[in-house]
């Protein structure tokens, strides 16, 4: 049983069954990372290329570890060390990588749709590791995995996604997946950060954080892109933190036992208070650990080994 698809570009076209399959496959790899010898031979002889056009430490490292723990050969390819600076197009770069018999290309790119454009042009499998504001499917899948590992069911689950939803690929992927699985998704932020039409995606829109948190089972904080301050999205970091920062007091408004998530890297004292980030309700580091297992599962399924 496999995913029966060449690429993983978006969560819009994964079925609930597909998502369940990925999460269950990740379960079986979770244990590998806890072993003394953290390696299985599942992808021996396969080549995985991390093609990262945007700086990323955690996602690239997570994919690299995942591939290595599956015994794949891994190449990291980033613009500073590639011919991209010489003006080569994305498609030509990818075709060159493909000519070296890459089985899977993991792409991170600043343009929405770059992964889809690439997937149309190459025979290798393409995994979207974040494309512009569009999607970050593996992040959402590891978020789902983390929620599920807390023995929370998705049907009726109240999830508040807090922050700059408009410019967040993490938010989009989570919205697509969570609504598909029957969760009640709330998005909250100042109207400058919430797309006008987002309600049509089946989410509820809030502009008041306290209201959005009432009864929430999961609080998903988004990273505030500090450099956006000059773009008239919010007046000051101080004001943003006061109105949309997650404090211990605010966590108490949520359901007892609610968990706090963040895709990282966190801005302590901006969108999340330090004591909240370090509290028992925070699962931020679990997300990171689960990320490796989930990506192992995805690589395994995409490689055709499944």
């Amino acid at each position, binding site marked *: 049983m496999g995913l029966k698809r060449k690429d993983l570009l978006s969560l*819009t076209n994964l079925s609930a069954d597909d998502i369940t399959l990925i999460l269950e496959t990740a379960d079986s790899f979770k244990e590998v990372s806890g072993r003394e010898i953290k390696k299985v031979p599942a992808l021996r002889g396969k080549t995985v290329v991390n093609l990262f056009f945007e700086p990323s430490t955690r996602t690239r490292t997570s994919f690299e570890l995942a591939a290595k723990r599956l015994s794949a050969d891994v190449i990291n390819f980033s613009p500073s060390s590639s011919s991209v600076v010489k003006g080569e*197009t*994305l*498609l030509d770069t990818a075709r060159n990588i493909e000519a070296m018999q890459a089985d899977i290309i993991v792409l991170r*790119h*600043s*343009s*929405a*749709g*770059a992964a*889809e*454009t690439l997937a149309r*042009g190459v025979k290798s499998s393409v995994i979207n590791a974040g*494309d*512009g*504001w*569009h*999607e970050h499917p593996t992040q959402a899948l590891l978020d789902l995995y983390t929620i599920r590992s807390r023995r929370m069911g998705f049907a009726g689950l109240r999830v508040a996604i807090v922050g700059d939803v408009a410019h967040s*690929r993490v938010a*989009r992927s989570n919205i697509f997946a969570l609504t598909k699985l029957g969760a009640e998704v709330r998005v909250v932020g100042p109207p400058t950060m919430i*797309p*006008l*039409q*987002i309600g*049509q*995606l089946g989410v509820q829109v809030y502009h008041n954080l306290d209201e959005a948190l009432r009864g929430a089972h999961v609080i998903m904080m988004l990273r505030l892109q500090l450099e956006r301050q000059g773009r008239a999205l919010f007046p000051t970091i101080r004001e943003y933190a006061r109105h949309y920062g997650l404090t211990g007091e605010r966590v108490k408004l949520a359901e007892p036992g609610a968990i706090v998530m963040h895709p990282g890297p966190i801005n302590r004292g901006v969108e999340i208070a330090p004591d909240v980030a370090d509290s028992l309700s925070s699962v931020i580091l679990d997300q990171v650990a689960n990320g490796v297992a989930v990506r192992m599962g995805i690589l395994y399924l995409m490689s055709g080994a499944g």
Partner: protein
Amino acid sequence: MTLLIQGGHVIDPGRVNGVADVLIENGTISAVGPALKAPAGATVIQARGQLVLPGFVDLHVHFREPGFEYKETIESGTAAAVAGGFTTVCAMPNTNPVNDNQAVTEFMLERAKAAGNAHLYPIGAITKKSEGKELAEIGDLRRAGCVAISDDGKPVMNSLVMRRAMEYARAFDVPVVDHCEDLHLSEGGCMNEGLVSTELGLPGIPSAAEDVMVARNVSLAELTGARLHLAHISTAGSVRMVREAKARGLKVTAEACPHHFTLTEELTRGYNTHAKMNPPLRTMQDVQAIKEGLRDGTIDVIATDHAPHATQEKQQEFTEAPFGIVGLETALPLTLALVDDGVLTLEAAVDKLATAPAKAFSLNAGTLAIGAPADVAIVDPNSEWHVDPARFRSKSRNTPFAGWKVKGRVTTTIVSGRVVFELDRSERQA
């Protein structure tokens, strides 16, 4: 050369609409009427079952010469024009160098003359280098042969500069053409802002980016008394404001492009770069408003915004790919589809493709009146064909209509009494 076009259905909007012969002598129309006698030595073109129309006039093309000849040249662009039935085209000034002085204008006119396809009239820049700061030498541009002024894709953002341009242009009776886009509102955008852009995570261009500039321009036209022509309007708001401006008697004309009355933002899904143009494809409500504007006369003109780009440019990531599609060779059938849909009468469609655009820019074109230049498009209205970009005369292939089955085809195009295009027999079955 003497030509007699026999037995066709002649439509010269407001003048003739019925079966007639058209006699062409010395490059001009010399007679239109039933059963004309062929003078000695005349070439007879049999047009029974076909439409005989004034050659179309496109107020909005980008021919990329000088500067971007790998996309299009004046020769290839005018060849595409006549293949689409256009005998007169107005070329935008966003070349390199920008057409902001008479030397560039004269160069373009020379190239068009050498190509010998369609008549070409350059549109001069409003400001030097289209930078929106200092006025270009509008009087000289006019005298050299420019028929309008525009900074097109780099709209003049400074409203005072725009006011001065409109005032100054009055001295030379030259229309001011604006691509209505507030560059602050649209910054970074690459498709319509709406549900689809939200799903695709693409930066959006709100309708308001167009609407606020239409409102500004209409106000300035009222203040200055200038002739204002609004390029490629795409929103319901624009249509509403133009309708209101016309009702108040302002000298405002407007054009719409076939893609804006045929396609919606839905085509962008899959990051289809052939659905990337500026203004962007909008919603079904906007498409309906554009059609209504065409029907009730708010929108005078159908123009193509023919914007050729090389294949490798359109193969880039969606956000990186350039805006624009080619349009000259598909405009006719897309316009005739409006006739089939009951939006326009056949005569109104011909008016918007030929007569009204000529009038908007005061061009000696767009009619089959006695003494007019013999610019004629002969059209088989029932010919069905598949759009095949490989057969385009244009150098570029960037069209969202590839593979579409369309109806209505240009079979012969005549410019100044000379046959400049005849559809190949092999293409008639295509």
